[in-house]
Structures are given as C-alpha cells and as structure tokens.
C-alpha cells in the first residue's frame, strides 16, 4: 500500500515535470515547481512511514516554507517586470 502511494507520487512528479519543461509562461513553470515541492513533501512523509525512520521529517517543514517564499518572490518578479 505504501509502495502504491510512492508510485502515484512518482507519476504526479513526472506529470508536473512535463508542465515545468513545457510551460509557455513563467507563471506556468512556477505552478508546476510548486506542485513538485508538494510532491516532495508528501514523498518525505510517505518514506518516513515506509522505513519507520523519521530523520528527514523536518526537511518536509523546510520544503513547505521554501515553496511559499519562492512562489511569492517569483510572483513579485513577474509583477515588477510588466
């Protein structure tokens, strides 16, 4: 069951990565990159359950904050450019 969760997350990461590479505008790439970070957070939590070793769980918190700050900064950049 846990392996199925990881496989579904891998499929989601591949799908987000397609939009990250193709996205016509910067905002599309930011949306895809934010989704990839969320997939990373979910994968860290799932792996902690799978192995029973939660050493990487604080990385999920940091990844959440990095996703928020990076999205906000790129939004400011897009707005200031026009």
């Amino acid at each position, binding site marked *: 069951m846990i392996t199925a969760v990881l496989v579904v997350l891998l499929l989601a990461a591949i799908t987000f990565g397609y939009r990250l590479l193709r996205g016509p505008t910067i905002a599309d790439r930011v949306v895809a990159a934010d989704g990839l970070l969320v997939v990373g957070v979910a994968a860290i939590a799932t792996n902690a359950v799978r192995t029973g070793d939660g050493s990487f769980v*604080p990385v999920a918190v940091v990844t959440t904050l990095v996703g928020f700050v990076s999205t906000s900064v790129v939004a400011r950049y897009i707005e200031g450019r026009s």
Partner: protein
Amino acid sequence: MIAEIVMLVGALLILLAAVGVVRFNDTLARMHAQTKATVTGVVLVLTGAASEVTNAHHVSMLLLATGLQVLTAPVSGYLLSRSVYRSRDIHARVDVVDELSSPAED
C-alpha cells in the same frame, strides 16, 4: 490500514492536480487545479503519515508541516494569480464579465 488508505487518496488527489495542470489551457485554470487539489492531497498524506509514525517529535513536525501548508498555499496562490492577471497573460474571453477589472488594478 486506514491511515494508508487516507495517504493513497491524498496521493491520488495530488496526481489529479498534476493532470489538471497539464490538461488545462490557461494559467489561471491551471492554478485553479493546482492550489486546491494539491493542498487537500498533501493534508491527507501528512495527517495519514502523522497517525502512522510513532515518535512524538515526528508527529508534531508532520502536523506543523500540514498547518504551514494550509496557511501559506492560499497566500502564494493569491500573489501569483494577481501578478498573472496584471501581466495580461490570460485569455480574453468575449463571453466573460471581468469582475476583477476595478479592484485588482490598485
């Protein structure tokens, strides 16, 4: 067992968000798919993981990540959508009333 089913449902929601991001043909429509479904999915995955993990520190860390995700995702989504609207990178549909035209200009 129930926690693993909850985590699987959350992962499927994240996959649904990814499919929406690829299939929709407008930046704002893609954000519509990504912000809502992604937050719901990651909340389900993290709470399911928090009920499976035994260490109290890791449980509190997972719940903290859940709360931060719920708090920060609407803010960043709002900032990004406002900048997309202002940079005029969206389709101008003729059958739609632009309700943002006056308030979002300031």
